[in-house]
């Protein structure tokens, strides 16, 4: 029998969990070192690839061949060039990997921790754009994993909290998810293991990796003060590795020393917690702004939030807890392992999405009362000609069809009209944006195709546009010419089969260690 699997595909660490026989999520440790979280670092050596903590060994020795923070590239049209040792736009390179391909290698590694992994729920940041979600689907396909559904990371975390038998979670909760590369804040209503997500906000470029970079800047500042020369922060990855260690120590100690090798020889540098905390204030300010925004959009004040739940390794930093306590008026809850909450929630969700006949009685009982309702994290719309209220002229603008924070599943139909007499086609554009936007430049057109219309008709013919979001966040769009009944149905899918097949074949040749 195939296992019920959840996978947290993180920026810095990834993990895999399954439901045990009692219906409890259980993180599966790696075979090599028995660790429950695996570094999302990939070392490439020809057709041999090392994934995980072992790959970190090459971070300093062969930095160009080490791929990190792949998740931050998932929505970009880039490839990692092993020769150049960086992400580049040059798609014609032969020694290059797409973000989806690199992610598939991480998934393959995780898949090998246990047997019978064929289907899984995979977690993604709440604010992952459609292109990044599609890339995640592609990665799973390359790793021969069927995606049951994608689930937003903070949603998975609150689901885990809510489903725990020993933890009392109730009322309105806020999930503060500060991981290695992304930050998400989610407000949800929890009632007897029933989770209703109200809203989510996030920053895709905010996480532990940024804190490490700040520490390297502190190192450089002190080295330069002593030797009047800069450290090569761009090419020498040793500093990043040391910064990570410093960060971990400063989470428990007030100060620490680190030996830094620079152009003018080694130097023992002392870094205090106060210095580190000061250096990350801008990032903490960003998390505060996102919390304020989430609270405002859900018409709540901090006092109305019963509990703040911490998720993600970076929440171990004392300054994070202090900042949060000050903002919310009470300290956050530390219920479970902050590194495992997301993957465990993914496993619970996989259980919810698995047919009862595939679960044993205990598993069914454990999941019987667990329910989840998520929301749409983006505005979905289309481009249309509208009157600009300021200039009173007709302009091409983005118009919203499904609003952000709409409960899923959702389906909305809006009527539009053709413009010209004898108009023979309409442009079916599907747009996505995090905020309410009417400007065409500020939205992402995630699909564009033409719908043919009958000839010789008057202007102002109605066209109905229906967008449907299923519970898992998959979008279906239908453009219907009302009079003729001509339809154009759009189901957003990964890359063309041809392109994907090519990438799959490339990944198949790689041996993952």
């Amino acid at each position, binding site marked *: 029998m195939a296992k019920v699997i959840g996978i947290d595909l993180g920026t810095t660490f990834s993990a895999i969990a399954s439901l045990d026989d009692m219906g409890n999520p259980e993180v599966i440790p790696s075979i090599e070192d028995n660790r429950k979280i695996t570094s999302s670092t990939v070392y490439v050596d020809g057709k041999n690839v090392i994934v995980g903590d072992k790959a970190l060994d090459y971070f300093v020795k062969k930095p160009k061949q080490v791929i990190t923070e792949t998740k931050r590239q998932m929505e970009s049209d880039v490839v990692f060039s092993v020769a150049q040792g960086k992400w580049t736009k040059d798609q014609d390179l032969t020694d290059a990997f797409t973000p989806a391909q690199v992610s598939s290698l991480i998934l393959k590694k995780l898949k090998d921790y246990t047997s019978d992994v064929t289907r899984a729920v995979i977690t993604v940041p709440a604010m992952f754009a459609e292109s990044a979600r599609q890339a995640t689907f592609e990665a799973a396909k390359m790793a021969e994993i069927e995606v049951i559904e994608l689930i937003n990371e903070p949603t998975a975390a609150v689901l885990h909290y809510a489903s725990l038998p020993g933890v009392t979670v109730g009322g309105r909760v806020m999930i503060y998810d500060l991981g290695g590369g992304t930050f998400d804040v989610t407000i949800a209503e929890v009632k007897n293991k029933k989770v209703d997500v109200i809203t989510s906000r996030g*920053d895709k470029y905010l996480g532990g990796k940024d804190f490490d970079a700040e520490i390297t800047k502190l190192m450089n500042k002190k080295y330069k003060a002593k030797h009047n020369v800069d450290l090569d922060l761009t090419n020498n990855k040793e500093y990043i590795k040391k910064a990570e260690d410093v960060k971990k120590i400063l989470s428990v100690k007030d100060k620490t020393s680190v030996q830094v090798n620079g152009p003018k020889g080694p130097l023992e540098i002392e870094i205090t917690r106060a210095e580190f905390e000061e250096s990350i204030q801008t990032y903490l300010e960003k998390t505060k702004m996102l919390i304020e925004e989430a609270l405002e959009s859900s018409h709540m004040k901090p006092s109305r939030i019963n509990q703040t739940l911490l998720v993600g390794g970076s929440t171990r930093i004392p300054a994070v807890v202090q900042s949060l306590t000050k903002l919310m008026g009470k300290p956050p809850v530390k219920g479970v392992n902050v590194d495992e909450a997301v993957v465990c929630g993914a496993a619970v969700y996989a259980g919810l999405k698995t047919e009862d006949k595939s679960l044993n009685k205990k598993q069914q009982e454990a999941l019987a009362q667990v329910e989840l309702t998520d929301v749409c994290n983006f505005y979905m719309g289309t481009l249309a000609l509208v009157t600009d209220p300021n*200039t009173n002229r007709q302009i091409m603008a983005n118009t919203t069809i499904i609003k952000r924070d709409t409960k899923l599943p959702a389906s909305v139909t809006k009527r539009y009209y053709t413009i010209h007499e004898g108009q023979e086609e309409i442009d079916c554009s599907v747009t996505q944006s995090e905020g309410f936007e009417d400007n065409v430049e500020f939205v992402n057109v995630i699909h564009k195709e033409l719908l043919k219309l009958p000839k010789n008709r008057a202007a102002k013919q109605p066209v109905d546009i229906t967008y449907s979001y299923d519970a898992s966040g998959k979008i279906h769009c239908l453009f219907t010419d009302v009079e003729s009944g001509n339809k154009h149905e759009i189901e957003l899918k990964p890359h063309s089969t041809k392109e994907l097949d090519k990438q799959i074949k490339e990944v198949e040749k790689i041996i993952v260690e």
Partner: protein
Amino acid sequence: MLRTIIILFLFFSFSSISFGDQETPTSEEFRKIFEKYKTERELPKNYKRAQENKFKKLLKDLRPFLIFVFIMIVLALSRSGKDKLKKEEEKIDDSSDSTLQKAIKRFKKKKENETNKDEEIEEDQKEIFDKSIKIKVEKEKIENFLSYVVKGKGDINIDNELLEKDNNMAKFSIYVFDITDSKNKIPLTSNSEGWHDKEYILSNSREMEINYDYGYWTWTPMFYFPELVVIPPYKGKRKLEFKIYATSLNTKFSKGAPVVKNKKTKTDETYLSISTKIEIQFDEPGYEEVKEFVDDVNERTVQLGLALADSDGHMDQREINIVKDWIDGQYHWSMFDYLLIDDEKSKDKQNKEKIKFSFILKNTYDQLRHNRLSMSEIIKDLNTKATRVQKYDAIQLLLNIAGSDEKLGIKEDQLLNKTARALNLDIEQFQKMKNIAIANIESIEHSEQINESVFNITESMSNAEKCKLLRKEYTRWNAQTNNANENIRTKAKKMVELAAELRKKYKC
């Protein structure tokens, strides 16, 4: 209760009476009956039985009279009940403390209202049945635009035979006239796409199927015009007339009125016309004034543009080109300008304008060089002579100039902010426009001052206002960090950092 018992008692007592057969006794008959009773009393025999028989007889004889008495009693009791209720009501009014009494009062009031409503509905229905369609204008928001909504109520009385030729279809058209001068009714004009007819007169129309008894039972929106497109000829207090025509489908219009060409065949015909009048306060220049001031406004806009281009100390050729393009745009616009449809400019006139603008460019340049260009004069003139649309046009030109040299400098930015405020533009809207320009600008001058200026933070703002504004800007830019356009994505990341830095500075 007592009243009910008495009524029931009397009812059962006289239940055998057939009111239809009896006649109410006259006073003479009553006297005779009474005298008879009196006479019989004087001759008692077999007293008890006789008494019973006598009473029965008396009752029988008095029945018609008693019915009358009964009616009188009922009337009297009912009157006393009403008086009592009235007294109770008065009592309730006096004793405002009593919750129960308050509830009774509320209930009575509700009942009263319901009765009134019923009466109103009855009245409305009566009106509908009695009267043909009427219209009124109300201001409402339609699709985020404050609009004049024309609502109709009543029957649309059009002879069915007339409609037959168009398969029961009729064309409804609406026009708006300025009737401030009662002797000079002027149809309003418009160049807004979708809101004018072929003569560029403000209008809207639609075809409707009219069946027997067609009409609106309640006030129903028939047409609307966004407030933005309803521009009278002059500013100030204006009287407007909204007029709806129902015509045959082929009917053409000229100057806001149907033109019936073929009276014999009746292929074009007006079935009905309805109108309503409103008074508005129009604070912007009217379209006649726009025509009058257009050259002044254009001149001032060009001066403003050059002032911005010069604000960082040197005028870049790319910046001048943007101004020239804008001037060209004005010529192009003028050629198709609805206002000039009857007075198309000749090539000669266009050339004269080009010469005039060349002179303005040179003159403004000289004024700038000698610090003689008065910004306050420009702003004052624009505020008097330019419409909101023209002001936004001007600010868009400034944003284009600011972005043309791919760098936003502190002085440019400050001038932009000041101008937007001085022109009384919506600052949030301006900031949105500026963000689009910023997204496409290569770099922003690096200084603490510009960090604040770029987000339009002013000294007069409180700390809380600054923090809130920065949060809004952060959210706006953070959403762009996954924009498909790499330039916008990069700029967004920069703006996100700036907003967070400032929040840190203000200790938000």
